[in-house]
């Protein structure tokens, strides 16, 4: 280390280094202990004593009041007795809270007014064990190694190592439960050519004349209608399978002014009179989206604010989603109801590994 002399660092010599002896800033030590009023005045001391006992006594009173309120007020009675709170809720909470608070305040008052408050210094101790303890531990370990003969009996040692190693196999074999891989399941939904688009919950089919410009219909494929039963009397899709298929096949139907829509090449006939159908599943992490701003044609996902422009082929205009919202091509059936032209032409929902 160089000390900067009067002529700059390069002219400094060892003779110019000032050697300091002793501590340049002496340890000021602890300030003198100052007594509290309760330490010097017995009258104040007795008063503090009475205060602490009074607080503890008050706590008992509140505890008893809690028990009284429990029996006096009906649980779940009129919820707006006092400031929008029910009598039972209010008094049970207040009494128990105040009972605990009085014990707390009493304890603090006790500690700060009456318990000893002399400053105490506690020195740090070394973390290591004492030399005798360490020697004893090492000799115990060596005795164990010697008596078990693990060094002298390699057959036992090696077979034990193999047995322990083999125990890792079940953990690796159980990894198979992560599979099997979903195959092409992620590429398909239950939508197919000619399947009607029906309103969710109501399951009524939809004609273009029923839908006005600015309208949003939360829709499902007609196969989810619980009133359509198979030969076994059960709905066509039900139970867990219904939930899984709904998570992929849910759609929204919107109608816009046809002049506002700019269909991509090949999508010119995917809508009917300005009515377009899109997947309801966000391409970011798969939240259901139906936050539709009809005037600006934006569909907003409430989870992470991904925003899709449905007048422009579901293009992402904001947020973390990386892919446009998949569009379901629709047309009309013989009775004039809106039906799908085919399944989605791309996987719906979030991206996955194999899709790249």
């Amino acid at each position, binding site marked *: 280390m160089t000390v900067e002399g009067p002529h700059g660092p390069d002219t400094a010599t060892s003779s110019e280094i000032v050697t300091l002896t002793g501590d340049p800033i002496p340890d000021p030590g602890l300030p003198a202990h100052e007594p509290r009023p309760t330490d010097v005045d017995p009258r104040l001391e007795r008063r503090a004593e009475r205060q602490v006992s009074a607080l503890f006594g008050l706590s008992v009173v509140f505890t008893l009041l809690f028990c009284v309120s429990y029996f006096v007020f009906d649980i*779940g009675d009129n919820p707006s007795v006092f400031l929008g709170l029910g009598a039972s809720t209010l008094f049970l909470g207040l009494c128990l809270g105040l009972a605990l608070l009085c014990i707390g305040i009493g304890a603090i008052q006790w500690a700060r007014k009456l318990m000893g408050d002399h400053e105490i210094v506690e020195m740090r101790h070394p973390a290591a064990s004492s030399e005798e303890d360490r020697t004893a531990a090492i000799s115990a370990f060596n005795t164990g190694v010697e008596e078990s003969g693990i060094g002298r009996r390699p057959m036992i040692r090696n077979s034990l190592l193999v047995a322990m190693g083999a125990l890792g196999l079940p953990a690796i074999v159980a990894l198979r439960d992560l599979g099997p891989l979903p195959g092409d399941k992620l590429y398909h939904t239950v939508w197919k050519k000619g399947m009607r688009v029906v*309103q969710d919950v*109501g399951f009524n089919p939809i004609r273009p004349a029923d839908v006005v410009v600015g309208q949003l219909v939360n829709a499902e494929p007609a196969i989810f209608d619980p009133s359509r039963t198979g030969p076994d009397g059960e709905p066509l899709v039900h139970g867990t399978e219904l939930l899984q298929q709904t998570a992929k096949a849910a759609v929204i139907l919107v109608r816009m002014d046809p002049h506002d829509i700019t269909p991509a090449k090949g999508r010119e006939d995917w809508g009917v009179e300005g009515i377009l159908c899109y997947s309801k599943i966000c391409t970011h992490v798969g939240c259901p989206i139906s936050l539709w701003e*009809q005037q600006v044609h934006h569909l907003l996902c409430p989870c992470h604010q991904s925003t899709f422009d449905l007048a422009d082929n579901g293009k992402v205009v904001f947020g973390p989603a990386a892919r446009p919202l998949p569009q379901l091509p629709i047309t009309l059936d013989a009775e004039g109801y809106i039906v799908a032209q085919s399944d989605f032409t791309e996987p719906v929902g979030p991206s996955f590994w194999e899709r790249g």
Partner: protein
Amino acid sequence: MRLPRKLTHQVAAGLSTKRRSRFAGPALMLVALLLTGGIYAMFAPANADEQGSQADDVAAGRTLFLVGCASCHGKNAEGILTQRGNNYGPSLIGVGAAAVDFQVGTGRMPLAQPGQQAARKPPVYNEKEIRQLGAFVASLGPGPAVPSASDTDINGMSADEIARGGEFFRTNCTACHNFAGHGGAMPQGKYAPKIYSDTPRQIFEAMLTGPQQMPVFSNEVLSPKDKAQIIAYVKQLNSQPEYGGFGLGGIGPVSEGMFAWLVGIGGLVLAAIWIAAHTAKSKKKVQA
């Protein structure tokens, strides 16, 4: 009026034996008058009065419109564009009386100031004036009419119907209006308002007309019965007692957690600091 006169003659002929009576003339006159009036009432157009008042409403509504609305929406409600081509006030042709009843009835129109969104405020026009404005706007082009009282009647619904309304509500409404109907934020300063304080008619009209960014839910897809069930669910939801005390805006664990952290734990920290900072010391020495 040939028929009444003919009838009068027949009655008069029947009474002819007493025609010389002192009361014959007045009696005949009375019968004739009653018949004429009765038959007129039978054949006259039944809603002549209503039509008359509707025409009056349109005229009165037009007067109100020219004073209060035309500066933004144009003298014939055709809408006004700004120089840059944006909407200054949109066209009202074809929005129907329901849209007027909602926008004016909730005080959103007339607009207090331009902005991202019209806010709810006390209505400026009274019930009659709103009806007149609605009649004028409805006369400009076909649009949804104000829903009837029977459509918005939510009394006497079974638990099943209200539960079905809940399914519709969670499917169609909660994305913007929150699962308790408390509303929520939208992009660029817009917001979905809270809906539990609106009347059933206003909620119905909002679904029917799609005010501002809200989409339309037409009666052909979401039937009036479905809408009434949704409204019944919202009202039922809002009448649920809050046993825990304060609802804190009904926006769920976020607001409650924030309240607990800021007010609860923050208060405890301040109390601890206050306790530690206040220690009385005495200059007197301890008495032995």
